[in-house]
């Protein structure tokens, strides 16, 4: 039942800037029917990529946000015992209490498997879950089927979803897990790439603003011992703030005070360091 032919290729989407290296990795992974594992600093667009693939291939996107307490079965299906209990006591719904099927709800992986068209399945931040979850999940994704024990039925995938897995962790995932994925690490965009990303979000941006914002941003990223460096997301929000502030003059920024540092630095320690840096720069 699997869709063996890859008749469409991925070529980037309207809100996402794709480098060709990543594009060919996405295409190869799709053709090999292997999950693609993406690592990289937060804010480098790991999650955005899945959205972009879905948009460009015109497939629905199903997002599984992994949580630390999550069990694999939560991602597959849910047996809604509470509703069944309620129905059995107060029996005023159209559901048939004696039919357990009526109380099985598909989880995100289950939805991707039972979908009538091919989907993009994004498994976001896999590193939050424990190793058992990861390995078990890969088993399911490998075999493209799972059992619902309550009703003794096997759910087989109609179409193999395009699977994108993201991880923030600096540490490695387990070997069996890695063995079954293709891997890519998204590096932090260089200034040229970043300019393009900003252009996508603010097509009419003033070139003065762009240049000062960019140079200040990359300067700020160089401050040492920052725990959470500002990333793409922060830059976009920061520029948005600068644009809406009527008092802001791009020429002023080169000379010292950097406005809205709180948008870029979210940890109080980092923020203090950035403010320090900003005022130090001012005195020079």
């Amino acid at each position, binding site marked *: 039942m699997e869709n063996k032919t890859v008749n*469409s*290729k*991925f*070529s*980037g989407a309207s809100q996402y*800037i*794709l*480098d*060709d*290296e990543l*594009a*060919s*990795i996405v*295409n*190869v*992974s799709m*053709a*090999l029917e*292997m999950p*693609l*594992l993406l*690592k990289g600093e937060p804010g480098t667009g790991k999650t955005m990529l899945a959205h972009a693939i879905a948009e460009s291939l015109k497939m629905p996107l199903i997002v599984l946000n992994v949580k630390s307490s999550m069990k694999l079965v939560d991602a597959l299906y849910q047996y809604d*015992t*509470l509703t*069944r*209990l309620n129905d*059995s*006591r107060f029996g005023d719904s159209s559901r048939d209490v004696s039919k357990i099927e009526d109380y099985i709800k598909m989880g995100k992986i289950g939805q991707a498997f039972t979908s009538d068209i091919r989907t993009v399945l994004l498994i976001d931040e896999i590193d939050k879950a424990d190793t058992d979850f990861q390995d078990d999940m890969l088993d399911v994704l490998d075999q493209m089927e799972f059992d619902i024990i309550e009703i003794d039925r096997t759910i087989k995938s109609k179409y193999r979803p395009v699977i994108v897995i993201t991880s923030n*962790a*600096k*540490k*490695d995932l387990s*070997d*069996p897990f*890695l*063995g*079954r*994925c*293709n*891997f*890519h*690490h998204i*590096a932090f965009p260089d200034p*040229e*790439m970043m300019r*393009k990303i900003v252009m996508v979000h603010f097509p009419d941006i003033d070139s003065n603003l762009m240049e000062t914002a960019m140079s200040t941003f990359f300067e700020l990223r160089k401050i040492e*011992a920052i*725990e959470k460096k500002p990333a793409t997301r922060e830059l976009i929000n920061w520029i948005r703030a600068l644009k809406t502030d009527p008092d802001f003059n791009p020429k002023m920024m080169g000379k010292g005070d950097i406005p809205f540092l709180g948008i870029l630095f979210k940890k109080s320690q980092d923020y203090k360091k950035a403010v320090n840096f900003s005022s130090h720069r001012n005195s020079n």
Partner: protein
Amino acid sequence: MFIDFFYQLKNVGIPVSPTSFLTLQKALNMGLINSIDEFYTSARAILIKSERYFDVYDQAFAHRFQGVELPEYGGLMLDEVTRALLEEWLEDPASLAAALDMEESDLINLTPEELIEYFKKRLNDQKGRHKGGRTWIGTGGTSPVGHSGYHPEGMRVGGVSRNKSAVKVAMERRYKDYSRRGPLTQDMMGEALKRLRNMIPVGPKDTVNIDETIYQTMKNGGEIEIVFSRRLKDRLKVILAIDNGGWSMDTYISVVQTLFDYARDQFKDLKTYFFHNTVYDFLWEDPSRINKPMRVEDFFSFDPQTRLIMVGDASMAPYELMAADGSIHVEERSGKPSIEQLKFLAQIFPHCVWMNPVSSQIWHHTPTISTIGQIFPMFELSLDGLEGAVNHLMTK
């Protein structure tokens, strides 16, 4: 066909598995890879599973494809490959079977010799079929297909156009920062230490376990049965003992500082002590090692489940470790040699490690390092070492 490339990657220390190599062959067979640029990225995505190896991969790739003619594939590299193949066969027959396109049951029935024969045959098949492919690789790493022209369905890539060949890109070594040999940052340390956690249920049963309640209620035929359980709490106790004396540790101050900072944030029940070179009668709570001494014997009163992390270069003159009056500080010479005190600590805290900032490659130059290494499991204060140490500390 690129069997020696595979071998070369293994040789430079990248863990590449035969299965992933066969996946790459499959990708080549499916015609997915049509230029050296694509080969560079696809092979990396398929073979290399951590950005820490990207730099090494780049180097190996540049070395391999920088205009060098491919040497004829001979039998001489095969030993290493077959060994890896057999290992994988034992560990994970299912995925190897899938990679070789055969049933798992058939695979298990093969003798090792037959398996190797089969593997060779497969490679030779591909070698035959890919004669054309070999030449483009051999022409010195320029792609005949041309940059960006390699998506016949009209795939258009927004973003950078890369006017360099894959070899040039590889030679830039863009991933140097991620190399395993890079310095240990607080971030990396945090990730490694995160697993040092010991969640255990404590206190009264005062939390409703909803899942269990529902399950038991259903089992009861709808009669409500509320199940309580205990809360999970991180009860891990950690003692960090740092060698902060002497010029020999000066070089490592920043990395130890990072470890210390992180540990202070991370562990609720952390005690830090200081010593100079090695442990004699006391450990100190204050870094200056004057005001708050703590007798080594008194550590007996601590929970034996406490994780003890010693940090030091373990480098000193042998007599400082062995002699009864080895301490360079007179007031500390109680008669017990330091080595006895260390053994005592290792005995009362079975979960202990010694983190050594000295590169493990030169440990054998210093006799006291191996002596102490026999008492405490010793790990290098690097990302790999830290992961090893955490694993060791968490084994029951």
